[in-house]
């Protein structure tokens, strides 16, 4: 099985703080990680390879330092890493990103059987890149995939929905987005880490893809971010004075007024 996994390097949002003045993320000093559900996609790919054989190629689009994310996936056991990087790709929204990713897949992996993505990234939370890539590739897709069975070119996918599961059959080539409940991603092995830096990660630029400048990055993005704000979470506390009975009475009155009890 020829599998392509699309991963994204994101800031570890557990460590991110918001600048109270500018309302933007403070990225300085925040470690970068593989987007958690993309790790589930890598794990799914490695499990399928163990069962059915084939090759796991991991692809990311990002700045040169996204190389680390590919090395980590290689250390987990992926076969090859590909870094799509070009200054023209910068500032892309999900549409332009999917365009670049789908063109890469068509160019570099014309015979792919399966593309796996994480459900969504923890920085943008759109869950759009996977579905849009499938549309641009013209292949069937299942989002929120939890379990995957393979029989020849037929896939049976269990999909998580709000109140249960759907079981969907489709044929390859196809694209799936994987949820975190699908599996527990393996740790990279220590020897895998040293091996991962012994191999070359192939760089892909627009010289390889030959897309029009208007289709790329900020120029190729129909979405425009006008402003980013964060809700003000500071609430004013109120201190009741008096004896405990009066305080409790006041508290209950106030909660009643707000329909909280």
């Amino acid at each position, binding site marked *: 099985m020829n599998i392509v996994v699309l991963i994204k390097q994101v800031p570890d949002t557990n460590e991110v703080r918001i600048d109270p003045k500018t309302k933007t993320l403070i990225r300085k000093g925040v470690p970068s990680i593989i987007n958690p559900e993309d790790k589930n996609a890598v794990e799914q790919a490695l499990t399928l390879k163990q069962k059915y054989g084939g090759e796991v190629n991991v692809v990311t689009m990002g700045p040169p330092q996204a190389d680390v994310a590919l090395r980590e996936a290689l*250390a987990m056991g992926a076969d090859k890493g590909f870094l799509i990087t070009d200054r023209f790709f910068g500032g892309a929204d999900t549409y332009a990103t999917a365009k670049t990713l789908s063109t890469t897949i068509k160019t570099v992996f014309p015979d792919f059987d399966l593309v796996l993505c994480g459900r969504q990234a923890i920085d943008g939370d759109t869950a759009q890149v996977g579905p849009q890539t499938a549309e641009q590739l013209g292949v069937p897709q299942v989002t929120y995939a939890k379990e995957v069975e393979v029989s020849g070119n037929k896939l049976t996918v269990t999909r998580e929905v709000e109140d249960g599961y759907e079981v969907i059959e489709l044929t390859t080539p196809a694209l799936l987005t994987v949820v975190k409940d699908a599996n527990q991603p393996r*740790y*990279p*092995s*220590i*020897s895998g*880490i040293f*091996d991962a830096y012994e191999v070359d990660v192939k760089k892909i630029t627009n010289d390889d893809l030959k897309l029009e400048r208007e289709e790329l990055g900020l120029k190729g993005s129909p979405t425009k971010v006008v402003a980013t704000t964060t809700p003000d979470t500071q609430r004013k506390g109120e201190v009741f004075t008096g004896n405990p009975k009066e305080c409790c009475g006041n508290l209950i009155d106030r909660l009643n007024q707000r329909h909280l009890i």
Partner: protein
Amino acid sequence: MDFSFTKQQEMVRKVVSEFAKNEVEPGADDRDLTGEFPEDIVRKMAGLGMMGIPYPKEYGGAGGDYISYILAVEELSKVCASTGVILSAHTSLCCYPISKWGTEEQKKKYLVPLAKGEKLGAFGLTEPNAGTDAATQQTVATLEGDHYVLNGSKIFITNGGKADVYVIFAMTDESKGNHGISAFIVEKDFKGFSIGKIEDKMGINASSTAELVFEDCIVPKENLLGDEGRGFAMANPLPSSPKYAKERQQFGRPIGKFQGIKWYVADMATRVQEAKMLVYRAAWKKQVGKMKSTDAAYAKLCASEAAMYVTTKAVQIFGGYGYIKDYPVERYMRDAKITEIYEGTSEVQKMVISGSLL
């Protein structure tokens, strides 16, 4: 000068840190109470190649370097000092002498399964009357035809009773003192070898510390490690408070706002940085083949005293809560104490250091 870690070292630290937080930290308090050896964790560490980080792949290792190994020990010890010491006793004390002085056959037979983590290693030097002063060894080894016969006992042996392979020191020629000590590779099932008293300790409770007993123990001649009389060279010793301070309120403000606590936290952080510098430098010197015994002594002395200073101050910052078992800081302090004692006490490190100066 370049103080940065390589990308590989950074990733080793990150992966081991995640492993430590997810797999090792959750049961650390319980294991401290029960003294249960973390066999499951050691098996998982083996699966991830952590049991032979600095050894070449052809001998079952991860093909890494000493700094990566030190970073792994550091990350594990942050959450469970017992797990850290199980790994370091195995890697530095058992695997290392075999990799350095072992024959090709010994490396294939013993280093490969040890570095792969299929087997656990230990090191037996200390006796009731011989610690760092190895020349007073009372365990003797007598050559009888195609094998040696070992008699005597070893105490305070880390991984004792849990290990499969032991590097054991014994006198082969008492008339030669230090130059009469030899090293042997002993398997746990060798006839005449048994485990004696298991120690009940103040800290590092999830690691095993045991007495080893040799009663006419038969060791094949080919298990002599290095040449006879070379043992002494091998035996030469190888080498959460800020968060609480922000949360704990007294006199209407977090205790971290008080200057006394601020000074503590700054001093603690500085001691940790000093220790890290000396430990990483020693690991780096080891990697490039330039380490002297004083490099290890500086690092060992500074790091163990820093560990004791920092954990004692942490208990102080936590106050009453620091003294009870609801928080792990009292465990950190008990665990830290042993670092000033084992593998050459602080006083021995000072002897090594002053010996090079005077």
